[in-house]
């Protein structure tokens, strides 16, 4: 069974503009896939379909299945625990008064309490390297720390598929390095929407290229990203890290 | 207009607290009933927005600056019940986190700024907007006048509370508060209208979204709030205003028709404690000044609305919230 299966997913914005056109792909368990494409390609919109936030009105035929379950009612509560969506702006996701409460939010909604809850929170914070941050206030954290708290919140729900929207954007080099190491360590299936092509080369075995809502290419990272004409045609560029490895 | 502790006595604190609690409770249940779930976070974020907006300086004259209160702005953008909730939240935060406004005065401050201001403001707004035909200009004129009225009304309520507590004599509190706030309110009107005009330009759909309740339900709501506000005003203002008829009666007698004044009988004896040095004879002039000020405020509101609305052909399409693509101001 595939971790994620998307079949013929289409979506239009409220004003009628098509956002996603017949998107189809799948992911095996434990894979790390990069989702790349120019601005406005629909990457964020696609990720929002993975846990049922979109479409606003349920489609007649669900196009997304996570570990065999359709992303639609009545499975949505379970799906949202399984699919951890990391939002682009950590400030949108870190809405609780303290770090501990925010990480605990998900498991609490799932019914955890007491010692079990505290354990779960402590473990998740440890996983992202933020033990001891329990009482910290969100607005005192750096962007990288906020991102990691958000990740901890997703891990606390025992997510088995992580959907990450631009996780390394506006991180300083150290923050980026720490994030990269963290994502490499996590044994969870990951789909990473990003402009950071170096990150994709470093940790993703496969990439999907999205442009104007449609999948235009899919395949192993090195072959796709080395295809300079393909990259340029879709508003991307061949990452420097590959230029250095394969000088032409 | 945040009243600190020590200016409101216990009976006023309890009375205002009770009315404010009822008003807030009603607003909460109304919001829960009518606001779609996806707008719930907007309440908290709007409260943060109001707080942040209140911190902006609007230079007035020689170093002084004005600040937005935001009651009518919130009411126009979110509706009256949400506005009551949002303003209450801001006041609660200011009281407990910044000691801005006393804890015993919280009831009074909530009554003035989270109940009277949004309710009076919204009521005036809907009335004027309806009379004006619900186009952009009428909405802006309504916003301006409503903001002015709401601030003045809140200041009068505040004066009443100070007087009822024995801190400041009514004869001093009323002209001082109402007088100064009639001027301050012009600033509030100007800022609120400019903001509403800008939001209409940027995102007209934000102003068109209304809660899911029917027209009837909304009027019922407004009437309920109106009653609550009136109750408060009857308690805090009417006893003092009851000596207006002395001046008015003279005029009535001269003009030869009967005058019926609402006299709160038991409380009028309290009034003998309050000497109104030299002002008694000027009561009538205060009333006249107040009426003139109100008329002037309306005229200014109309002028402002005209200035902010681009010129249009009389027969052109004026969908509410529609505006010219060229902004007249930019940051």
């Amino acid at each position, binding site marked *: 069974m595939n971790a994620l299966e998307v079949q013929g997913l289409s979506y239009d914005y409220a004003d009628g503009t098509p956002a996603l056109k017949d998107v189809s792909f799948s992911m095996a368990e434990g894979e790390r896939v990069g989702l790349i494409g120019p601005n406005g390609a629909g990457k964020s919109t696609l990720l929002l379909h993975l846990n049922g*936030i979109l479409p606003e009105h349920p489609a007649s035929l669900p196009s997304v299945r996570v570990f065999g379950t359709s992303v639609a009612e009545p499975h949505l509560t379970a799906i*949202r*625990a399984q699919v951890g969506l990391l*939002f682009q702006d950590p400030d*949108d*996701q870190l*809405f609780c008064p303290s770090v501990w409460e925010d990480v605990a939010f998900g498991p609490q*909604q799932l019914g955890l309490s007491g010692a079990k809850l505290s354990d779960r929170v402590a473990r998740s914070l440890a996983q992202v390297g933020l033990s001891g941050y329990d009482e910290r*206030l*969100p607005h005192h954290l750096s962007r990288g720390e906020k991102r990691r708290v958000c990740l901890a919140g997703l891990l606390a729900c025992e997510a088995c598929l992580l959907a990450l929207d631009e996780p390394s954007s506006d991180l300083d080099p150290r923050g980026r390095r720490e994030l990269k190491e963290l994502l490499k360590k996590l044994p969870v299936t990951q789909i990473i929407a990003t402009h950071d092509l170096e990150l994709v080369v470093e940790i993703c075995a496969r990439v999907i290229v999205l442009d104007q809502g449609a999948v235009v290419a899919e395949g192993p990272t090195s072959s796709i990203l080395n295809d300079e004409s393909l990259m340029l045609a879709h508003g991307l560029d061949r990452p420097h890290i590959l230029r250095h490895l394969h000088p032409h | 207009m945040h009243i*600190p*502790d*020590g*200016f409101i006595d*216990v009976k006023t*604190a309890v009375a205002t607290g009770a009315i404010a609690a009822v008003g*807030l*409770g009603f607003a*909460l249940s109304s919001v829960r009933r009518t606001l779609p*779930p996806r*707008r*719930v976070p907007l*309440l*908290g*974020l*709007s*409260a*943060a*927005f109001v*707080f*942040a*907006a209140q*911190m*902006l300086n609007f*230079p007035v004259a020689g170093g002084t600056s004005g600040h937005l209160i935001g009651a009518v702005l919130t009411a126009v953008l979110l509706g009256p019940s949400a506005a009551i*909730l949002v303003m209450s939240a801001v006041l609660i*935060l200011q009281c*407990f*986190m*910044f*000691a*801005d406004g*006393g*804890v*015993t005065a919280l009831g009074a401050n909530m009554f003035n700024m989270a109940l009277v201001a949004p309710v009076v403001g919204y009521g005036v707004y809907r009335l004027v907007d309806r009379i004006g035909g619900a186009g952009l200009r009428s909405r802006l004129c309504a916003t301006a006048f409503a903001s002015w009225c709401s601030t003045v009304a809140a200041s009068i309520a505040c004066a009443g509370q*100070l007087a009822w507590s*024995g*801190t*400041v004599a009514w004869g*001093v509190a009323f002209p001082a508060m109402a007088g100064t706030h009639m001027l301050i309110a012009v600033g509030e009107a100007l800022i609120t209208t*400019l*903001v509403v*005009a800008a939001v209409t330009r*940027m*995102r007209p759909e*934000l102003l068109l979204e209304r809660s899911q309740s029917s027209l009837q339900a909304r009027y019922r709501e407004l009437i309920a709030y109106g009653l609550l506000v009136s109750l408060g005003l009857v308690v805090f203002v009417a006893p003092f205003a009851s000596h207006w008829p002395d001046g008015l009666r003279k005029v009535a007698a001269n003009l030869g028709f009967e005058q019926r004044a609402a006299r709160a009988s038991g409380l009028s004896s309290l009034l003998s404690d*309050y*000497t109104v040095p030299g002002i008694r004879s000027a009561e009538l002039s205060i009333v006249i000044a107040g009426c003139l000020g109100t008329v002037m405020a309306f005229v200014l509101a109309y002028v402002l609305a005209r200035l902010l609305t681009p010129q249009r052909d009389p027969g052109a399409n004026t969908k509410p919230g529609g505006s010219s693509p060229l902004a007249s*101001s930019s*940051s």
Partner: protein
Amino acid sequence: MHHPLLNTYQHQRSPIHRLPAAVKLVGATVFVFACLLLPRHGWTAFAVAGVALLLTAALSRIPALQLTRKLLWVEPFALGVALLSLLQTNGFQVFVFTLVKSTLCLFSMVLLSSTTRFSDILHVLWRARAPSLLVTTLALMHRYLFLLTDEIGRMLRARKSRTFSRGRLNVWRSSATVIAHLFVRTSERAERVYAAMCARGWKT
């Protein structure tokens, strides 16, 4: 944007900081009500109250300068209204009495706000079964307070870099536009926060 009062939380350890929030909240409120009930000539009572506050302030280890600054920041309005109280019979007495009472109460509330996190106060409200919609609103407001004031600060700085005429009218117009922008961004953020809350299973 650095508002002088926004850094109210002292991450200090003191006997007062360690007290449960409920105790401090109730204590401060009771103290304030008690001050209101003091008779006009109860100068001994005032003195006792004052000493009690000074002791608490000392125990809380908040720098005296900070406390004084906070007291002074909010005083002007109180002074203004108090001056109005002079214009009545026994005016001077009322004036002094009001000012003393008010200062004592204010001191108490400043101590409360400096030693108690607002989120702890929210917890107290939550446990006391305050309406959940109110608590959620207060919590979200508190969480996004600093973010929005920062945003507004950034927008003001951006505006300053692009404004060449200092006319008052211009300032008013651009300030209003800044506020309008902030509202639009706030609305958009609210939608995203809603999505984030749903994404983690929030049930309304």
